[in-house]
């Protein structure tokens, strides 16, 4: 759904990139000296409930006062670039993994590898990857959203289906359902949102970007990447997926009315299910996300991070605050309470204390252990996934072609082949050393 907002703000971005001159130097100012005395630092975020936690922190830590600024959503990335250019950026800002990698590559972040090292063990390896694009660490994980499956148990029963374990099962179930009712779809893929392919590739063990010593290896056409693409291709070819757009606020109807009977979903969506599924709540059941290889089960996740911006004067204090916020029991207990409206799910190793409260009361039929499924998903997020230095621009390139794939004007394989060449050319143009994986 972030893709929708991306397009809405594309105008802003275009104007900005016209006038922005990026400082392309690497930010190697690794300040590991400890800061003395009272400091104040600024933190931009747009997650509900964080402000209250900042107040809790400020009360207990008079020496490190955090000034919270509620920034207006995704345009914040353009604003941050402008603020860094003019030298009045905050010390910390909420960022997604994709933008953290791009900011790091553009030299807009502070390298905190040494400062952050003691905190590394608190978070999952996949979360730490998201704040360490290319090896050096530029942020602290904030939250995760591991992927799992939700399906209409009543309709699965009606069509004689079992909950799918693998993606092959999903396709078989989709075909079986259509033999009973030709209008039913097993899955949904929006024309504007290629995140489905990202998730599948992540689950399949693919590495679109991989750091190897001093260069990147680009693998859009590796066997793992192609088998992920193949699942999408089969869903498209056999008309097994609906194409409801996530830009439509009424998108939930697609599932609520039983037109599409399965979805992959995540923790941040759980709180809104009871209100948005008035007709079908109580009929849904959770299951583990479909797998490629049952012997090596893995799922995917988006990560929210706290990025350390260029010019942050007290990264050590900032790291103390950021890790307290996203890993201390005190803060996480408050933030994962649905009353906080944060939608945040922790990126720490043991999420079990925070799962029960986020499960909606009426949505599920109680026949599967929802808490167990969420915990499992959090523990099996693929650790190989890395965000490359031009991930954000690659993503918009992919977005253009994804629409054609959905309309059957192009194959997934052709798109991946194109992206492979596009990324290699783009990185070369940016002066980043990159080779095709396996070459």
């Amino acid at each position, binding site marked *: *759904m972030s893709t*929708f907002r991306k397009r809405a703000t594309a105008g802003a971005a275009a104007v900005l990139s016209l006038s922005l001159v990026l400082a392309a130097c690497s930010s190697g100012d690794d300040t590991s000296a400890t800061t003395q005395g009272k400091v104040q630092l600024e933190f931009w975020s*747009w997650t509900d409930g964080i402000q209250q936690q900042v107040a809790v922190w400020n009360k207990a830590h008079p020496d490190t006062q955090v000034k919270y600024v509620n920034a207006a959503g995704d345009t914040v990335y353009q*604003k941050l670039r*402008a603020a860094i250019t003019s030298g*009045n950026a905050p010390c910390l800002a909420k960022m997604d993994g994709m933008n953290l990698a791009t900011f790091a590559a553009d030299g807009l972040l502070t390298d905190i590898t040494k400062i952050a090292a003691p905190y590394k063990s608190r978070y999952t390896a996949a979360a730490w990857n998201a704040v360490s694009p290319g090896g050096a660490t530029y942020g602290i994980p904030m939250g995760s959203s591991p992927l799992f499956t939700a399906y209409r148990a009543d309709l699965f029963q009606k069509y004689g289906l079992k909950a799918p374990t693998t993606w092959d099962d999903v396709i078989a179930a989709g075909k079986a359902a259509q033999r009973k009712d030709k209008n039913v779809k097993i899955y949904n893929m929006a024309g504007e949102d290629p995140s489905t392919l990202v998730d599948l590739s992540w689950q399949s063990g693919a590495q679109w970007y991989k750091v190897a010593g001093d260069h990147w290896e680009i693998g859009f056409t590796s066997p793992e990447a192609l088998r992920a693409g193949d699942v999408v291709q089969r869903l498209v070819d056999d008309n097994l997926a609906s194409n409801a757009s996530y830009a439509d606020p*009424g998108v*939930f109807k697609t599932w609520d009315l039983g037109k599409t009977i399965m979805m992959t979903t995540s923790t941040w969506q759980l709180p809104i299910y009871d209100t948005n599924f008035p007709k079908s709540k109580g009929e849904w059941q959770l299951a583990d996300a479909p797998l490629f290889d049952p012997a090596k089960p893995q799922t995917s996740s988006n990560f929210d991070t706290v990025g350390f911006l260029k010019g942050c004067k007290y990264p050590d204090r900032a790291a103390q605050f950021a890790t307290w916020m996203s890993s201390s029991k005190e803060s996480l207990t408050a933030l994962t309470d649905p009353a906080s409206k944060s*939608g945040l799910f922790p990126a720490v190793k043991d999420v079990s204390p925070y799962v029960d409260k986020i499960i909606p009361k009426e949505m599920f039929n109680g026949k599967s252990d929802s808490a167990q499924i969420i915990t499992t998903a959090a523990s099996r997020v693929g650790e190989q996934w890395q965000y490359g230095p031009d991930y954000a621009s690659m993503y918009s390139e992919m977005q253009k072609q994804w629409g054609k794939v959905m309309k059957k004007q192009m194959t997934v394989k052709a798109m991946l082949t194109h992206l492979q060449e596009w990324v290699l050319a783009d990185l070369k143009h940016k002066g980043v050393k990159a080779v095709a994986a396996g070459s």
Partner: protein
Amino acid sequence: MSSVTKAAAAPGGGARPTRRAVALTTSLLVVFLLYSLAPTWFLLVASTKNQTDLYSTFGLWFSSNHLADNFQAVWSYHDGVFGRWIWNSVLYSTVGAAGSTLISLAAGYGLAKFAFRGRGALFAVIVGASLLPSTLLAFPLYLVFAKIGLTNTVWAVLIPYFINPFGVYLGKVYADSSVPNELMEAARIDGAGEARIFVSVALRLMSTGGITIFMLDFINIWNNFFLPLFMLNGERTFPVTLGLFSWVQQAQASRDMNTLVLSGSLLSIIPLAVFMFALQRYWRSGILMGSLK
């Protein structure tokens, strides 16, 4: 819309319009009316629904009424930040438009009534500047204001609002047409200074034009989005446009805020509607005046 006016104007010139032309014009106007009113109607209907009904019932007709709950939710969100946004919008629009009107009238009067070297060139630059989209200037303005340390203050939006090349252009047109040179001569002969002539004579004569400039500016500033988006951080300084935008963005994330966005949008129309109706008379005469120049 131009086709509508053309269709209406064509049979003019004294003859009675044919029945067919009347039917055609009327039906085009009715279509245009529906086109204009449908979004407002949707907004009105949608504001009465709760989250569940919003998606599960027919969009253009009412279901159970939750208008009061929705308004309550809008007003209480984040300690009443919505009220603050409305107040900010009123403040930015009123002060910004007043400042801009005064500057425009003064500059326009100067350009119209005083001959000085480079007047033509200056006027050309001002007309040219009015063609520059303000969106394009937002980032350079941001850098300038960051340099002098004024970003994230009320001045960062007010000062750019004060300067409006199109307003200066209108000011010149109004000064040309409504301030007779003879009157200025008479005032000079009576011993009035130039400042006095401007304040006591010219400003009064240009008041209708001034109100038009004020209204145009007021509405522009009320609807402006890009400048505050750049300049202001932190939701308590936002005007209502930016505030609603921040809600739309959150609607896609942690919780569904679409009912808040819709009810908030409905509420945000009210001040502007009141303003428009109150000044309708000037609005009409102002537009007519502009069209004849």
